[in-house]
């Protein structure tokens, strides 16, 4: 039971490393952006896992209900805003990839580097 309660952290570790591995090994820039999104989602999962409390409920006070246990609202606030910032930065990365494709005709980073090295 105690071990199953740690499952979220294991998934966090695995997702983080899947994202990092793909970020390093994939050469396609769009794929790199997606890998970064997986990496980011892993961190979101870690924060929200910390906010959960046993027998708790979403932190919204209901009138007339006493002795409610609320999950921690603070990590939720941080992650809520981080998700919207995440999509904006993803879009920025994608825009850079589009411009690179227009200039170089490819979005594979090794081919772009090879073109840059040629005099």
């Amino acid at each position, binding site marked *: 039971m105690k071990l199953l309660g740690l499952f979220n952290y294991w998934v966090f570790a695995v997702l983080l490393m899947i994202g990092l591995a793909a970020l390093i090994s*994939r050469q396609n820039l769009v794929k790199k952006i997606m890998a970064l999104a997986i990496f980011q989602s892993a961190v979101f999962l870690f924060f929200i896992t910390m906010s*959960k409390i046993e027998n708790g409920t979403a932190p919204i006070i209901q009138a007339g209900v006493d002795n409610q246990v609320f999950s921690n609202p603070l990590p939720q606030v941080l992650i809520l805003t981080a998700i919207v910032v995440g999509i*904006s930065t993803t879009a920025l990365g994608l825009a850079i990839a589009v411009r690179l494709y227009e200039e170089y005709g490819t979005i594979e980073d090794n081919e772009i580097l090879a073109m840059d090295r040629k005099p």
Partner: protein
Amino acid sequence: MTTLLIGIFLLSLLVITAIAIVRATDLFSAVMLSGIFSLLMALNFFLLDAADVALTEAAVGAGVATVLLLAGLRLTPSTEAKGRSLRALSIGIIAAVALLMIYASFGQPSLGDPLAPAQQHVAPWYIEKTPELVDIPNIVTAVLASFRGYDTLGEVFVVLTAGIGVMFLLGGGRGKPFSRLDSKVEEGLSRHLIPKVMARLLVPFILLFALFVQFHGEYSPGGGFQAGAIFVAGIILFSLVRGERLTLAVIPPRVLLWMSAGGALLYGSVGLAGIAMGGNFLEYSVLADDPVLGQHIGIIVIELGVGLTVTGVLLSIFHAFAARD
């Protein structure tokens, strides 16, 4: 116990989807898989009692992000070149770090432990003081808009900056500024019966729901960030079916620019109004005679600012990608 098992099932699916995203060489399937990934993530957030976060992830991750990635793929090749495979050394290092983190997790408090340090620090104070100081039911909104209003102001400006970056990079098509963006797409999917009927039925309700989430965000899960994302999802659906030209006639690029900048300005000016009325920056209590009423006014206005900026920026980004050829 059941919740825990459902959570474990969903998290396993999440890992499988992540591996499938990384392995797919067809980027279109990778984008669709990442939509599924976000939806699974939203379900997980919901199970972990984070209703506001789940709403945001479902609208942003599964909705808007998928469309933006598809719009980006339209302009770039959609298959991935056969890349180098991971070397044994890097696999070793990554596996070692993963195992190290899993080993470290045995020192973490178990899921939902009420004695965990994260539950002991400021959270009880926020939960205890919100009814007294801010008096709105949704504690997440109270923390986001009032207690940690500085953070949120910063986030809004980050979103605005990213939007400005995309507008500079892509503009309104080749050699045109964003404000003169135009589209030749007249009809979108309107010749296809099923998307047309579905969009006609769904779009008004999506927009109405976005307004509900915006203005009811103090009482139920919601707020400016979620409302903005849902509103944009509705407009994008309209645009896909009825063509971008009509969408741009409804909300021209110039209006989008005003919305993006105006929302952030509105937020900042609430802060300045606090100073002018004798308080600190972003102190809402001085905005009215009754401090709690002042908090309500401040929160409603800054949430409106957040909603405007998020709507303006995300919709501008969509149009910038869609108008490029």
